[in-house]
């Protein structure tokens, strides 16, 4: 009888402790979310107040409320969509082209030593060249068409993705390769079942880094060599002294950048379930 009671007491103690632990975890999650949202909201409020009271020059630092109004006008009037469409089209074409070729060349260099020896040093040297600097050359060759804009993005993406892909193959743990060899994995089977999955995390890193870079490059290209797109919109607002429009352009570009990075992360989670499916939660890991 007494042991029964003791056991009951112990169980409720354990249950309570577990419940407490869950509550603590949920509380921390909510707190993180609140802090993450509160910071930008607070900054925007400060900005609004500072601009309205004259602490900031409202002609240069358009109050957020006016930016929202201007943005809404441009959305309804269709003006913003024209620029968004042009930029996204260049980004998508350049990013897909650059990453597809980058992954292919990186993999080839990884698995085939002569290709690596032939291309490695040259690519490493070219990697250091600021890709935007070759835009004038591309303009000379292709004229004021879409081709030099898309190519600028593609070339920037290519180098980052190629280098990461190659590193992904070269850095595979020797013990993994030995295990593969011990089970007679060769040729396509070795590539498909061992080399490619082992390199995928590095490839995804390359894609994530180059996505941000692609947005920078497309904006810069549109500054100088375009009469549409968000880069053009931003640059043109400077020349016309329209800070509201400029802020709308800046915000839209950052949203597109965030969206692309988000898409790459979603892709990464889908392709790498073995990295993201939860293991045991450790206290030290997520403080």
């Amino acid at each position, binding site marked *: 009888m007494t042991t029964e009671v003791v056991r009951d007491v112990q169980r409720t103690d354990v249950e309570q402790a577990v419940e407490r632990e869950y509550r603590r975890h949920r509380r921390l999650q909510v707190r993180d979310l609140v802090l993450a949202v509160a910071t930008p909201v607070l900054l925007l409020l400060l900005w609004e107040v500072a601009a309205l009271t004259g602490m900031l020059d409202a002609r240069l630092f358009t109050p957020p409320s006016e930016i929202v109004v201007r943005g809404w006008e441009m959305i309804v009037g269709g003006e913003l969509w024209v620029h968004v469409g042009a930029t996204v089209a260049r980004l998508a074409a350049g990013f897909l082209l650059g990453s597809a070729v980058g992954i292919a060349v990186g993999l080839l260099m990884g698995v085939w030593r002569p290709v690596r020896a032939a291309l490695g040093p040259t690519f490493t040297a070219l990697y250091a060249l600021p890709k935007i600097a070759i835009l004038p050359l591309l303009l000379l060759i292709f004229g004021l068409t879409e081709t030099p804009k898309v190519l600028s993005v593609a070339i920037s993406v290519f180098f980052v993705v190629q280098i990461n892909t190659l590193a992904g193959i070269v850095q595979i743990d020797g013990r993994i390769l*030995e295990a593969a*060899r011990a*089970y007679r994995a060769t040729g396509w089977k070795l590539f498909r*079942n061992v080399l490619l*999955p082992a390199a*995928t995390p590095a490839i995804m890193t390359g894609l994530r880094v180059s996505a941000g870079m692609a947005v920078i490059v497309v904006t810069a290209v549109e500054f100088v060599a375009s009469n549409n797109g968000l880069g053009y919109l931003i640059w043109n607002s400077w020349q016309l002294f329209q800070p509201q429009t400029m802020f709308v352009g800046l915000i839209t570009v950052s949203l597109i950048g965030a969206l692309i990075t988000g898409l790459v992360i979603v892709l990464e989670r889908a392709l*790498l379930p*073995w990295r993201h*499916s939860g293991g045991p939660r450790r206290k030290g890991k997520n403080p």
Partner: protein
Amino acid sequence: MTSAPTRTGTSTDAFVVTGVSKIFVGKTPVHALADIDLSLQTGSFTCIVGPSGCGKSTLLRILGDLETATVGEVRNLLPEGRVPRSAFVFQEHGVFPWFTVLQNVAFGEQMASVGKREREEHARHWIGEVGLTGFENAYPHQLSGGMRQRIAIARAFATGSPSLLMDEPLGALDAQTRILMQEQLVTLWEAERKTVVLVTHSIEEALLLGDQIVVMSARPGRVKEILDVPFGRPRSVEVETEPEFTRMRQEIWESLRDEVQASMRFS
């Protein structure tokens, strides 16, 4: 069991090693193995012990064709089929993190182009044998070190190779898990009777698992002696309480002591 090394090899031999030496070429050449003669019977369980750096892993790799002998000859008399003649178990990092338990265990047969249904059936059987039922779709990083090692062992058995080559398969495990897995390994082997070569640094493990123990010298590794293990089968950890166990452990340790001291002078 044959205890004296034979040069010719008989019909019941699985591996015949004759005059094998291995020199790794590098800045300073390393003489890893010197003049190894060894014959291993089909269906026998051989344990190789020796000081670290004595080339026992290298010998295992040469047996499994992952490494070639600089001089000498290794004859593998086991039947050649669609699966490799030897399946390996490595100390760790031998399982692929991007595959589930099921895919890892089926890997050997997948590489041998065995159909998906058949290889997954075999894999499920061996997952059950090593006690991982219910974890078929888990990824290795979700499991403990002991469970990951059981994946590697299940994969070696599921591949269906006539011989298993194990390189300190239980070396990275804690003492308790290790004892349990030694017993599990004995049971699995007693049911299958494959030719097994197991490299270990644990004399107890060698005595518990093996039919014969090959004691190697410090680098360059030579076969110092080959001992027959007298304990019958089926065998369990209880043999460790027998006086003969203590006597043999002492004998092997004395044989190894000089070699360990020699190898410590090296490094």
